[in-house]
């Protein structure tokens, strides 16, 4: 299958207009020694029908949340995606456009991003949002670079309740930026006691944390501010109908994995990096920002603004190297948040919390199964302590039709993280309990 539309006559006429004899002549400036003197070692092209068949057979070799009951979380969640989200975000005027450099031809995506920024601010109770970053982990790395601006304040303190994958990404980015994230321990699954000295740039807390536990964020951030450090919170956007928002908890910068906002699981991406902060950070905020303005006739319109922060203007002095971001996911998030509204968001949060509480209650009735942190409050996810290695248990449950959760990495050798979204029914939760009982018997 090919998409170039040229007929042989077209090719002939165009070569003639250019004054060349053959297509090979178009490449004559490539020095002979570096040319590829053989065909590519790839299969022949195929028809559309054949590629669909090929991909269907690959897809059939996966067992997705379509046929396994999904209790897996750990940063990506099987929430329901209403049809309207991708019916709209999937309109080709959105998905086949480029970054809106010509605003007169891009008002659709620009206004959608303005609305996205507005809703993220409402959600987080913070003053300003950018137009998206890659994902939650890289958004955290960007937040750290935003927070590390005061000379002498270089250290980055991270709660052990932050997902280890986020910390790994920070460690990678830190090698270039010149910091090594320092992890402070939790007490009984939350809190901890970061020592915020005069050399600390920021304190990072994830709430709910990697064990699903709700953190004493106000206390941690209060201590961080007393020590003069900036505060960064990782949050779950769908928790914010029921949980206090980062802005109320003392977060200077709030970042999130926005997959839950209308995006499918997609085996890890494309997802959405959400970032909101206080207005005083706006001139160093990474990524695109859309602003409202007027045209020459005084009509309201939208443009990319504060571009002097960005790589295409600022080059090596830019606050970030980000160029292409996750705009389409931000458009989908906007539609999804519009679909939920304040009441739907709160009700969704209550459903997840109720179902997670019910699941925790009946799963811990199984002999040998207990909560990793009994009594600690959680939202839609909790860690179970199992009598057998969790990966083994999880694999056995796959055979019974369940994706039971995500085994937590060392030092948590016996913990399985279980997430319960609004999609899980009582029957499925009880089915998991039954299957787990059998597996452990």
């Amino acid at each position, binding site marked *: *299958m090919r998409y*170039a539309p040229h007929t042989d006559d077209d090719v002939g006429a165009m070569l003639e207009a250019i004054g060349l004899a053959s297509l090979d002549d178009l490449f004559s400036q490539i020095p002979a020694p570096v040319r590829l003197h053989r065909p590519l070692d*790839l299969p022949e*092209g195929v028809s559309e029908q054949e590629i669909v068949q090929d991909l269907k057979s690959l897809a059939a070799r996966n067992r997705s949340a379509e046929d396994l009951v999904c209790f897996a979380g750990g940063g990506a969640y099987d929430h329901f995606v209403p049809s309207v989200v991708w019916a709209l975000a999937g309109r080709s005027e959105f998905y086949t456009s480029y970054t809106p450099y010509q605003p007169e031809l891009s008002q659709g995506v620009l206004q959608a991003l303005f609305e996205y920024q507005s809703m993220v601010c409402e959600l987080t109770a913070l003053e300003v949002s950018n137009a998206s970053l890659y994902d939650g982990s890289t958004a955290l790395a960007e937040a750290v670079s935003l927070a590390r601006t005061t000379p002498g304040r270089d250290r980055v303190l991270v709660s052990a309740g932050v997902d280890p994958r986020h910390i790994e990404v920070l*460690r990678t980015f830190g090698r270039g930026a010149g910091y090594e994230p320092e992890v402070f321990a939790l007490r009984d699954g939350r809190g901890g006691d970061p020592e915020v000295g005069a050399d600390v740039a920021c304190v990072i807390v994830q709430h709910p944390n990697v064990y699903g536990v709700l953190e004493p964020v106000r206390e941690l951030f209060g201590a961080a501010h007393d020590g003069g450090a900036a505060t960064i919170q990782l949050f779950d956007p769908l928790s914010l109908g029921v949980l206090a928002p980062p802005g109320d908890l003392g977060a200077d910068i709030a970042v999130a994995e926005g997959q839950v906002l209308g995006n499918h699981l997609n085996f890890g991406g494309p*997802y959405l990096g959400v970032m909101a902060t206080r207005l005083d950070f706006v001139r160093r905020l990474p990524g695109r920002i859309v602003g409202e303005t007027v045209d020459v006739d005084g009509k309201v319109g939208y443009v990319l603004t504060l571009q002097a922060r960005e790589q295409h203007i*600022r*080059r090596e002095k830019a606050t970030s190297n980000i160029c*292409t971001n996750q705009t389409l996911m931000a458009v989908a998030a906007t539609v999804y948040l519009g679909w939920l509204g304040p009441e739907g968001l709160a009700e969704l949060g209550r459903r997840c919390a109720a179902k997670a509480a019910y699941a925790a209650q009946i799963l811990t009735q199984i002999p040998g199964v207990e909560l990793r942190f009994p009594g600690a409050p959680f939202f839609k996810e909790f860690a179970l302590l199992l009598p057998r290695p969790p990966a083994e248990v999880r694999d056995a449950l796959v055979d019974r039709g369940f*994706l039971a959760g995500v085994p937590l990495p060392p030092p948590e050798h016996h913990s399985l993280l279980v997430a319960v979204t609004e999609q899980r029914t009582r029957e499925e939760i009880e089915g998991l309990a039954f299957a787990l009982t059998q597996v452990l018997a």
Partner: protein
Amino acid sequence: MGAPVRRQGPPGLGTLKDLSRPGRRAWSLPALDVPPSTMPAAHSRRQPPALPEVAERDLVTHFTRLSQLNYGVDTGVYPLGSCSMKYNPKVAETVAALPGFARLHPLQPDQTVQGALELLWRLEGALCELTGMARATLQPPAGACGELTGLLIMRRHHTERGDPRRRVVIPDAAHGTNPASVRLAGYEALHVPSDARGMVDVGALEKLVDEDVAGLMLTNPNTLGLFEEEIQAITQLVHGAGGLVYYDGANLNAILGRCRPGDMGFDIVHINTHKTFATPHGGGGPGAGPVGVTEELVPYLPVPLVEHDPETGAFRLETDRPRSIGRMHGFHGNVGILIRAYAYVFLHGRDGLTEVAERAVLNANYLAQRVKEAFPLAYPDGRPMHEFVSTAAPLRERTGIRAMDVAKRVIDLGFHPSTVYFPLVVEEAMMVEPTETETKETLDAFAEALLQAAQEAESDPDLLHEAPVTTPVRRLDEARAARHLKLRW
């Protein structure tokens, strides 16, 4: 001729908030089938977020109308130079949406994701064949992140050898992400000028490259759309001083099947899937920025990497790679985009991909030929590859009309304009990349529009000063947007 007749665009749309009415809703949820629970009061939200309250009907109309204010590749030719806005095959959307991919959780056990891992493995193999690299990571979610990945690999290579270096050389015409990535990787950017032919000034490069230079980043064809003819001398020069050479894959689409970065002497390559493999750009993402490396650098690739056991036929995600630079993304990158890239690569196959490059270069050269009298090539001695850089400087000299005015007039004539004012090294630059998927008729019509604009610049310049007049909004006050920040409702 008098003042242009101003055609009224559609009336402005309010925001979704303007449609909000208390109690209106679009959401639905099944009845609660478990006992309700309550959040501890200390953690509860007191004030609900002021999200809009709208009906589903409102959402559909609002976002449909917004989409209609947007120009996409599906609307027509989108000749933004350096952006490669080619047609995005619909089948790629179909296959990426298959539930066996779309509903796959990233932390499932390997035995439940064999199809996805095999897809990633095959795609990696194809990318290595196309670039002449040994292995590749598919994790970076966009080209700029690929650049940082490659530079961190470069950094690890030098530090492991006990030879940390401080600088990376970049051509003055480079895309802004290059210097920004260099700084994020902890290096200082050194700029090498272009010579009179629009290519790297090899003499100047020779003076810059020393034992403190970690490497060189280069696009080839370069940012001016020209093939660096002295590429072998350049890569040898950098290697001779112990540096590595990084290939910015922004223009890989021009050389598919004709030559490969690995054969030119590059050590690290990133690919922008939207430019080379027609994954849709989404109005600013999602992208994907796979990075390939030579055998020597494979140990540094990010974790996890897909591995294949030829004996059992099983695929797995390998995380135990002690010399790896680490993780560049929370999960496995933008897999949904990589699936689209896979579909594109294997639909075209070996001859189809070679033809992609041929037709892209043919279209660019044909269009350059059609417009060069009005908009001369910035570097007329070189043959453009898949894109060309013209200049409106002579037009400006004669008429005062600038490249941006031409771009805005082209909008009124029914087209998306080219990139303007990039690369920064060309005065009144107009960077045009028609891509291989446009017909000769479309190229002719676009050329006519450019020529008409040039002619009107002489005869009726107000048409250009006033343009655009046919769009939903006219020229917007960007200075005001930055001065009086309004970033939310």
